[in-house]
């Protein structure tokens, strides 16, 4: 007997006492998901039959009522609380702000994903390094900064989420360089809460949720920034 059969058999015997009510499967076995996310944000038939009723979801979809402006404000506050550096500007000001952030950081080379809006880098003459599949981790380690967009940002938790889209690039480019500049479109990319963020995200893509720079509290619970990820995270909220 394979271990698979053995384990499944043990599970079934272990559950002999349990009424299998709210069964997740019809007579034909588990229903196949047709994907959990729809553009309307519902989860629809992704759930297995009977599961909806099995769990009471009496928790909130978001905590408190806020205007779009207040939500952006909260995002900025919570990001800053986790020691991200937060900047706000208009679309027009963005290139010069990005240029200034590089200058302040002493950046000479910057990684930019292929789909990044070229205008964002139009006011700086730092050398642009392409995000290529062939680059080695060592090469990335030599780059000063990285600039990306994001998929969604969560105000209540101070989180930005990257989904590997063309303007965000591979996961490793926001990991290896020490300085990450992330641009968030306000209010379009900002949601209030974790439930609202999950609705917008596609689980088929690799996701990276970032709340402030890398941190550890392993030494006497003193928080230290930047053990492995970027030690400096700058988030630009573009109105």
């Amino acid at each position, binding site marked *: 007997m394979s*271990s*698979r059969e053995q*384990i*499944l058999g*043990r*599970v*079934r*015997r*272990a559950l002999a*006492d349990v009424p*299998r009510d*709210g069964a997740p499967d019809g007579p034909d*076995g*588990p229903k196949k*998901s047709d994907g*959990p*996310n729809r553009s309307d944000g519902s*989860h629809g038939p*992704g*759930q*297995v039959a009977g*599961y909806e009723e099995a*769990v*009471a979801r*009496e*928790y*909130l979809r978001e*905590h408190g009522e806020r205007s779009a402006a207040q939500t952006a404000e909260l995002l900025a506050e919570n990001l800053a609380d*986790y020691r991200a550096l937060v900047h706000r500007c208009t679309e027009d000001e963005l290139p010069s702000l990005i240029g200034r952030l590089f200058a302040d950081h002493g950046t000479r080379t910057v990684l930019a994903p292929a789909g990044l809006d070229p205008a964002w880098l139009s006011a700086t003459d730092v050398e642009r390094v392409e995000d290529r599949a062939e680059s080695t*981790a060592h090469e990335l*380690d030599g780059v000063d900064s990285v600039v990306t967009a994001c998929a969604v940002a969560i105000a209540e938790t*101070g989180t930005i989420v990257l989904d*590997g889209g063309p303007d965000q690039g*591979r*996961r*490793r480019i926001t*990991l290896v360089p020490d300085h990450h500049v992330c641009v968030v479109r306000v209010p379009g990319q900002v949601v209030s809460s*974790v439930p609202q963020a999950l609705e917008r995200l596609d*689980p*088929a893509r*690799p*996701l*990276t*949720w*970032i*709340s*402030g720079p*890398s*941190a*550890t*509290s*392993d*030494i*006497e*619970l003193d928080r*230290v920034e*930047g*053990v*492995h*990820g970027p030690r400096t995270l700058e988030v630009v909220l573009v109105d």
Partner: protein
Amino acid sequence: MSGTFVGMPAFPKAAQEAVGNPTLRANLRHATHTIRAKRAAAVAEVSDWAALREAGKQIKDHTLRHLDRYLVQLEESVTAAGGTVHWAADADEANRIVTRLVKETGESEVVKVKSMATQEIGLNEALEAEGIRAYETDLAELIVQLGKDRPSHILVPAIHRNRGEIRDIFAAEMSEWGRPAPEGLTDTPAELAEAARLHLREKFLRARVGVSGANFMVAETGTLVVVESEGNGRMCLTLPETLISVVGIEKIVPTWRDLEVFLQTLPRSSTAERMNPYTSTWTGTTDGDGPRTFHLVLLDNGRTDTLADEVGRQALRCIRCSACLNVCPVYERAGGHAYGSVYPGPIGAILSPQLRGTGSEIDASLPYASSLCGACYEVCPVAIDIPEVLVHLRERVVQGGPVTLEGNRTVLKPAKGHAAERAAMRAARWAFARPGALRAGQRLASRTRRLHPRTLPGPGRAWSGSRDLPPVPAEPFRDWWQRTNGGDAGEGRAK
């Protein structure tokens, strides 16, 4: 479970030694009190905590009730996304699978994300025996590994070490494992973290195989989730060409949407943060981004036996947040090592004896490693009634009864060494049944304590050996209970 803790003394003895170590006690006290206060504040920030907790409990219970179906569904979706699923009935099988997979890559070293499942099966030692070096990359795990030590906390494994000790370990041991510590390293946390960064970066950048656990697996989509703060998780999950994840079968949630519950409750319960710095999710493999090969090893190793216990199975709801450790008065004084298992604290006291059976002295003593004060239940984000399971397991140890071991139903004999304890319990029951005899009962309790075998009855002994007993309160507990109706205010145990 693994051989990591073989030879550990039973809990009471280990606890007594730990309690006699003032440095350890101070480190622990500082740590648990700090996290405890912060956690309360983080939880108070969300008004729907009780509803989130209830939903978390229901999701996990539902999943466990249909675990066979969800395992099959998960296998299908991971496979469809380009991953390969392996099933491991026990630690040895899991170790064999991982060793084979690493060997097939031709590599002789792996980088590891902190993972309780791989500690449980003793993977590092198994790899070592086959000539493969496993590098722990979580800062605390690094401290533990370099110090040839064992982890003592779920979340902060080196909680028992202070900065001076960490400095000495780095200075003495880093060169053995790779890049040496910088000259003149001091004990400031920032310098220590920087030393770890440089030491580990060298390994990350050349690593071709990563080994991880996972916090959650989504049956519906085949997505795995790792929650962390340092970025070492991201490093191990994205830089290597091959990723091998070893995950307990109980870590499943049915749907993508379910993550909305746990991504709210886990960070607040564990590090008292609104959100941990990094969460990574991946579904199989992605072209041109991250590992090209992904293996998922589904681990049983006693979980199905635990599932077979009608009272004890709720331990499988655990999301390893460690909140119960930080509020536990016994853990605070005894430390994690005293539990002699990968899972310390209240959850360890109920999970380890179920995963491993109560055959050994340490496992038989674990259900006694608690004061039954109930604080662990109050904080648990999935509402595991740890005291209920503790009492159930004590009964099992003392009286014997039906259990499932490696899939087979069998009847456990009453533990031999516990015969005196049984007598003591009967005596206590007699005393409590006669209100007038309470004072006498107290004397009786202390007299029977002397009758107990050396390894029993748990922490009470270690405590009284190292601290004064508190004065008797002015108002007897029973009177207080009757007067205030059990304190009535706040979150009552009974729902």
